[in-house]
């Protein structure tokens, strides 16, 4: 722990150093352009790469200038822009390539001045999938329905947690406890039913309730993709709803040292966030690359349109390092990240028994203190998550061999309100879990054989141990082992269709030791299951694709579902686990029709899912009398459930204006009772318009307006209070680009609308946050280039 503190302080110091160097960095940027002009023999070449059909900027295009003596290259960023500096005058051959596009070639003279050029690429008849463009090799499940956030879209949402960042992608919502604790939800399922893959490793945090948010610093991510089908083949069981792939930025060898700074300030909660990274390679050893990254964030009490939410501040300190060694055909990467957060739980949600809950619901506004401060008091949570992984791969003549070894450590402390101020000031937790996970993944991706088959086989082994202490009992001591084997093949006929099929077999053992007060005899559980994935994709002309995917995933019951036994504060409920739960199994069919015509893009993806033995917390209608009064009794139960829904997204661009419309609908039914299941999102629609005011080589200004309508959830069965009414929100954003620097002002909830959200547990007690002005600044800096 002391080592960790030390590293945090080093990261903090680095951030200060980087801030200072920011000033010099800007100076060096301007100096660079001046020197180019003075020498007269060196020029720069910059421009933008566009898709010829949709006129969208193309990210990741390779721009190569082949000269007689020297060659230069660059890769277009998420805005499609690129620039190469210090090119000696002469004749060059320009080659621009991008996976899925016809290459662009031109003879190019650089004699008198720097050149700016717009390059338009045209798609080849057979359009490949987006993920394949990124990976350029075995690309996982291509027929899966995927939605993703790129680098620029992530920059647009900096300052929020993972859940809030993904929110409002088609089909994605969040389940919240206030604004600081937000869990992603795919098609109405969340928590353990979603797998989060963090740089290739299964994120193993403590997903034991709706108040446990994923422990990931979104600043580590360079792109996030969400797979919306049931998919367990590659990453192991549990992904009934889908998979979230968090991809860190790749290490680079273009700049000897470069840096990136993100600053975010928000008026609501007076939140400040800064994140910085420093990366480069070792001088004269470009195959040895490194990166340091750190994020700090602090917020105080958030404000609804009418009052402050007392004790809702948080504090976050994260850092990561990444070192890679890439000789020819070989690679070893070491990555470590640490996530630390302390967050307050809204005091108004800490109540007693059912009568208190009824009373709290009856109030127009909570009775908590209406003041702003940064202090975090009980009830609070302190969470630390460490992730360490070593990834090594070896390209052979037969294929690619990859070994991924990981260790994760999760330390979660929950501190309840104590009876006396004296006790409250002690930071000893009432509930303390330590979860340690070791995992080994071995994957072999074979080279295509018989011209059309490509795929992978692999083996995963995972062990996990949970220990707990504290005064409140929730999850017992347990150890878990999981061994899985998978095979995945795809068959590709480029012109018209491609198909894939995958199988996986898992064995899982769970050994549980109950606390002494109950029984000393350990309990053993074992689960064995087969899961599969299958899909087919048709290319209709070069304008449309139609995907069908059928997958099956299973999930073993979690320790909390088996053994929890006690009062859940905040929810005013007494929750009892069920030791006889069986594994749940889901079959999900999802289809997607994608159509692109000039400026119009259309996506429709309907789905159905049947879940056998779906585990959920069922209200029994009975009460448990305790020393604090009566609490309604909830028991974990299993029923068969049926889910269905549709995501739609349409975008149209005309000159400088782009309009995007997104819609989602999901419905879930308890087949035993023929009643709706709880906590399913209502239908929602969002309309967004972006307008580019002006655009030159160096400057761009974009203004955006977004209108969101969230309907009332009319499908509910038993609840303490009926779902809140529908609401509308208006958000506005202005983004200004100067060269690589991006500055933006976003205003969320412009009209300061008071509303409550059905998927936020705080809805019983208080409104959602009000108007929020968000300032963001993103500065990439090339501190030391290799030819300098």
């Amino acid at each position: 722990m002391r080592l960790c503190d030390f590293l945090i302080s080093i990261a903090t110091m680095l951030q200060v150093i980087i801030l200072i160097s920011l000033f010099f960095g800007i100076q060096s940027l301007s100096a660079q352009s001046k020197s180019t002009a003075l020498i007269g023999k060196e020029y720069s070449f910059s421009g933008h790469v566009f898709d010829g059909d949709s006129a969208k900027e193309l990210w990741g295009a390779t721009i190569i200038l082949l000269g007689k003596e020297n060659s230069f290259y660059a890769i277009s960023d998420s805005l499609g822009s690129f620039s190469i500096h210090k090119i000696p005058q002469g004749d060059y051959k320009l080659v621009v390539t991008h996976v899925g596009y016809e290459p662009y070639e031109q003879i190019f003279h650089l004699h008198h001045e720097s050149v700016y050029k717009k390059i338009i690429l045209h798609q080849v008849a057979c359009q490949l999938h987006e993920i394949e463009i990124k990976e350029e090799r075995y690309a996982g499940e291509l027929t899966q329905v995927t939605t993703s956030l790129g680098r620029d879209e992530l920059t647009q949402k900096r300052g929020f947690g993972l859940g809030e960042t993904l929110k409002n992608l088609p089909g994605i919502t969040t389940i919240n406890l206030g604004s600081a604790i937000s869990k992603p939800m795919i098609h109405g399922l969340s928590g353990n039913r979603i797998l989060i893959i963090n740089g290739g490793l299964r994120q193993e945090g403590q997903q034991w309730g709706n108040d446990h948010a994923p422990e990931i610093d979104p600043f580590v991510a360079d792109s996030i993709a969400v797979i919306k089908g049931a998919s367990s083949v590659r990453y192991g069981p549990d992904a009934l709803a889908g998979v979230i792939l968090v991809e860190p930025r790749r290490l680079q060898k273009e700049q000897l040292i470069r840096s990136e700074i993100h600053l975010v300030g928000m008026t609501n909660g007076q939140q400040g966030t800064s994140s910085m990274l420093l990366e480069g390679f070792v001088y004269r050893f470009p195959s040895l690359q490194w990166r340091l990254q750190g994020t700090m964030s602090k917020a105080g009490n958030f404000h609804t349109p009418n009052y402050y939410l007392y004790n809702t501040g948080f504090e976050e300190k994260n850092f990561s390092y990444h070192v890679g060694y890439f000789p020819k055909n070989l690679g070893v990467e070491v990555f470590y990240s640490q996530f630390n957060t302390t967050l307050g739980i809204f005091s108004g949600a800490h109540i007693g028994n059912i009568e208190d809950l009824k009373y709290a619901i009856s109030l127009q506004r909570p009775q908590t203190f209406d003041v702003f401060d940064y202090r975090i008091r009980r009830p609070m949570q302190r969470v630390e998550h460490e992730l360490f992984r070593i990834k090594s791969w070896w390209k052979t003549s037969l294929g690619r061999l990859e070994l991924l070894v990981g260790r994760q450590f999760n330390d979660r402390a929950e501190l309840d309100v104590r009876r006396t101020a004296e006790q409250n000031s002690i930071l000893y937790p009432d509930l303390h879990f330590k979860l340690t996970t070791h995992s080994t993944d071995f994957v072999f991706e074979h080279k295509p054989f018989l011209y059309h088959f490509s795929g992978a086989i692999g083996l995963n082994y995972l062990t996990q141990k949970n220990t707990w202490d504290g005064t409140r009992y929730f999850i017992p001591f347990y150890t878990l082992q999981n061994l899985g084997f998978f095979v995945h093949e795809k068959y590709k006929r480029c012109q018209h269709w491609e198909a894939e099929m995958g199988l996986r077999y898992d064995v899982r053992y769970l050994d549980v030791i109950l606390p002494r007060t109950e029984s000393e005899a350990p309990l053993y559980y074992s689960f064995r299951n087969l899961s599969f994935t299958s899909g087919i994709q048709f290319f209709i002309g070069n304008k449309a694709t139609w995907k069908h995917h059928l997958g099956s995933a299973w999930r073993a019951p979690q320790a909390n579902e088996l053994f929890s036994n006690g009062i859940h504060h905040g929810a005013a409920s007494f929750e009892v686990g069920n030791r006889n739960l069986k594994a749940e199994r889901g079959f999900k069919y999802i289809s997607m029709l994608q159509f692109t015509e000039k400026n119009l893009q259309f996506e429709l993806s309907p789905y159905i899912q049947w879940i056998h033995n779906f585990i959920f917390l069922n209200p029994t209608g009975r009460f448990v009398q305790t020393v604090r009064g009566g609490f309604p009794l909830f028991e974990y139960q299993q029923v068969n459930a049926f889910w269905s829904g549709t995501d739609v997204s349409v975008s149209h661009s005309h000159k400088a204006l782009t309009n995007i419309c997104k819609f989602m609908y999901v419905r879930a039914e308890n087949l035993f009772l023929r009643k709706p299941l709880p906590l399913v999102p209502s239908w929602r629609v969002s309309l967004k318009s972006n307008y580019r005011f002006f655009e030159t080589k160096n400057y761009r200004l974009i203004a955006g307006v977004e209108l969101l309508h969230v309907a009332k959830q009319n499908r509910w069965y038993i609840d303490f209070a009926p779902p809140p009414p529908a609401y509308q929100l208006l958000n506005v954003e202005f983004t200004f680009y100067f060269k690589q620097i991006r500055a933006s002002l976003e205003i969320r909830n412009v009209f300061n609308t008071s509303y409550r959200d059905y998927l936020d547990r705080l809805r019983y007690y208080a409104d959602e946050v009000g108007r929020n002005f968000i300032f963001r600044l993103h500065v990439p800096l090339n501190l030391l280039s290799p030819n300098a």
Partner: protein
Amino acid sequence: MKNFRKFSVCLIGGLLWFSSCKKDEHDHDHSHKHDNELITRVTIRLQNVSNANDTILVAWKGKMMGNVVVPDKTDTLSLGASKLYNGRIRFFDDVNSKEITSEIERESKEHLLYYTYTPVSGGNASDVVVEGRNTDPDGKPLGTTFRLRVNASSVTSGTLKVDLRHFSGTAKQDNPNAGSSDFSGVFPVLIR
């Protein structure tokens, strides 16, 4: 083959580093600390204002169910018709063998005792009235001592609900549902 050698060197090196990074294994002792915030017994002592020898002592007793205290046994309050009593309530944690009343009184600004009398059908809500609760330094009621007035002049019965409320993050209010609940118990009442 040269590559394979490099690969295995990287691998073994990596694994060594990996295993050296392992933290010490965490405590296997899963016996847990006892909650020092328990309330397992509550007593009410009533003394007739006009007769010091006329005292009543009743208790509410809880038992542990897992880590939660649930009601076990509660005595009946047998009150005399048209009498006035001085009352004193005390809280105990028998698991850790300590009395908590002084703790509550020391933190009087954050605590409140609320007494609610509910008559059986035919009775009057004003048959039993709790008044004159002692106060905190701000002059707001605390209620560890109080006065209990029996207004009923004939035989009747009901229940007396005692709520110990805790205010943290909330201003103190004289209300049985504001703040959070530390104790909530019901004593049967018989008036003779």
